[in-house]
């Protein structure tokens, strides 16, 4: 492990919102080419952690490095360049409400093109249409406005937009929540393909243990403000973290079956 390139590196992160401590001494590392899943209780600060990693919120202490650069200590221009190297899918979609589905997905591509590079219009158009279908939408949805979409469709558009530039690093906040099981499986296979084909690094937050068990190379358990565990499923199976009540509760029940199976074998 030690020889691998670190894409995300968080050290001693501390977060406090309105006097409540959300994170304390959070350390985590994501390596190039792996899928890292962050799991934890609802309201445990997963979204906040992701927002701090990508620089949308300043942590109250500690450092966040992506590709070896401290996200919160960058010049405006450097930060701008760095931001183009990752994609983000927000939990609620965060689509631009005034833009059609097509324009939402085309947005990051068109932004890239503003640098004056050669990227023909029809290539952008075909790429967008392809990404829409890759995320499980049909061609007819392209001209719809976000306000007319169902919750699951919003999720897929958000995924298509996060995938639009095929950045080397992808942050996903609960990609599977709100999807029907079949679409969720489709999404898993799309992510798996992308990840294998492009050696993509993925940091995802997920409640869906099946999907985590199917995709994740390593997992992080964030509960009680701290990282209770970081490692592979097999390591978790042997770890004493599993003795803790919070962790036990996470993997209890039928929905944790696939995850428990991976811990054993």
């Amino acid at each position, binding site marked *: 492990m030690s020889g691998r390139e670190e894409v995300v590196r968080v050290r001693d992160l501390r977060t406090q919102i309105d006097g409540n401590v959300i994170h304390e001494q959070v350390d985590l590392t994501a390596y190039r080419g792996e899928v890292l899943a962050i799991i934890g209780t609802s309201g445990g600060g997963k979204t906040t952690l992701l927002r701090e990693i990508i620089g949308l919120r300043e942590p109250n202490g500690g450092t966040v490095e992506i590709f070896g650069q401290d996200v919160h200590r960058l010049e405006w221009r450097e930060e701008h360049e760095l931001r183009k*190297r990752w994609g983000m899918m927000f939990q609620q979609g965060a689509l*631009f*409400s*005034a833009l059609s589905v*097509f324009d939402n997905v085309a947005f990051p591509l068109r932004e*890239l*093109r503003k*640098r004056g*590079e*050669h*990227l*023909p219009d029809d*290539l952008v*158009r*075909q*790429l*967008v*249409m*392809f*990404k829409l*279908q*890759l995320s499980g939408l*049909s*061609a*007819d949805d*392209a*001209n719809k*406005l*976000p*306000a007319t979409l169902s919750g699951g469709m919003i999720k897929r558009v958000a995924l298509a937009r996060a995938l639009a*530039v*095929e*950045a*080397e690093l992808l942050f996903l906040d609960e990609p599977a929540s709100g999807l029907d099981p079949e679409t969720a499986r489709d999404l898993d296979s799309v992510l798996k*393909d992308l990840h*294998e*084909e*492009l*050696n993509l690094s993925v940091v995802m937050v997920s409640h869906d243990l099946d999907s985590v068990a199917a995709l994740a190379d390593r997992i992080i358990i964030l509960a009680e403000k701290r990282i209770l565990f970081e490692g592979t499923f097999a390591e978790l199976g042997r770890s004493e973290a599993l003795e803790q009540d919070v962790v036990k509760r996470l993997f209890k029940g039928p929905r944790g079956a696939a995850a428990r199976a991976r811990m054993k074998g």
Partner: protein
Amino acid sequence: MAAAPRLDINEDGGQRRISVLGDWRLIELLRGHNDAMRELESLRVRPDDIWDFSGLGSLDSAGALLFWRCWRGQRPGTIEGAGEHERWLERFSDAHLERPALPGRMAGLSGFLPGLGALLAGFAIQGYGVLLCGGQFLVDLWHCVQNPRLFPRREFTASVYRVGTQALFLNAFLGLIVGFVLTWQVGGQIAQFGLNQAVIGAIGLAFTRELGPFIAALVLVGRTGSATTAGIGAMHITEEIDALRAFGVSPTLRVAMPRILAMTVAMPLLVVWTDFWGIVGGIYISSVKLGVTWQMWLNQFPGSVPIENYFLGVGKGAMFGFIIGITSVYYGLRAPPDTQGLTQNITRSVVVGLAMVLVVESAMGIAFSGIGL
């Protein structure tokens, strides 16, 4: 690390062998390594070409799409060494890559006339909607009179606070400034004829009858009306209006009625407040510049400004409050749930609100020209 994408074409006895080398990824293409992309775009495929992918580093869908385009949507005869990359090339075969057509817009005169018609119809619909909104307000108010427990007290008091209390400073400031300036200018004219004390009637009438209500209405449209439209419109985006309906609460009664009522009730008070500060401004300037002291003002004011003007101004204020209330609430409730539609409706709310104030102002000026002058 990443290698620039490259094409290596070897002609061998009439047959071409096209070797694909490097990383064919969007990031690479955008880094300025797009010579190969142009080369591929201008390449004419021949059926007997051999495509050799064994030297390919990595391929993303943008890269794969470039090949797919070059092949005009069909797999060429021979592909070698594609291995796992095959998946990407496959994926395009059943994808629909053309964007469905947008609903067309008519151009030229044939588009102008229907466009004009739609515009006029739009005005009519909006005017009708604003009227309906006023009617709904009366219905809701009547409901509350019959069943006082329905009355949304918290919303109403909060609205009065926002409409009235929070606007006090702005209204006083504007009143004072206009009072200063107007007295300065009118006073200069009047002083030429030695009629210094006529300033009391002029300024007093101007404020109680016209300027007080007008200044308060301007502040109400620009400050509170636009905020009301934006606030109600945002409730559409966050689906709060739907949530109210789902719980069996009437959005017009809970959201619209208290706001309209608050504006109607607060405006007369704001008018009195604005009148006061405007006249204070007038007293100050006239005592400094014209030698008309505040004692003279107190003595002569009742005689020069009949009490009808005061009631007329206060009544106008209530009228303006009601009009601006129904306009801003209407455009908020009608706002489409996206940022652009909301912005457009806020603009409309302000423009229509102002226009209505001007129209009513002139109409009342004519209608009441026989009273109080």
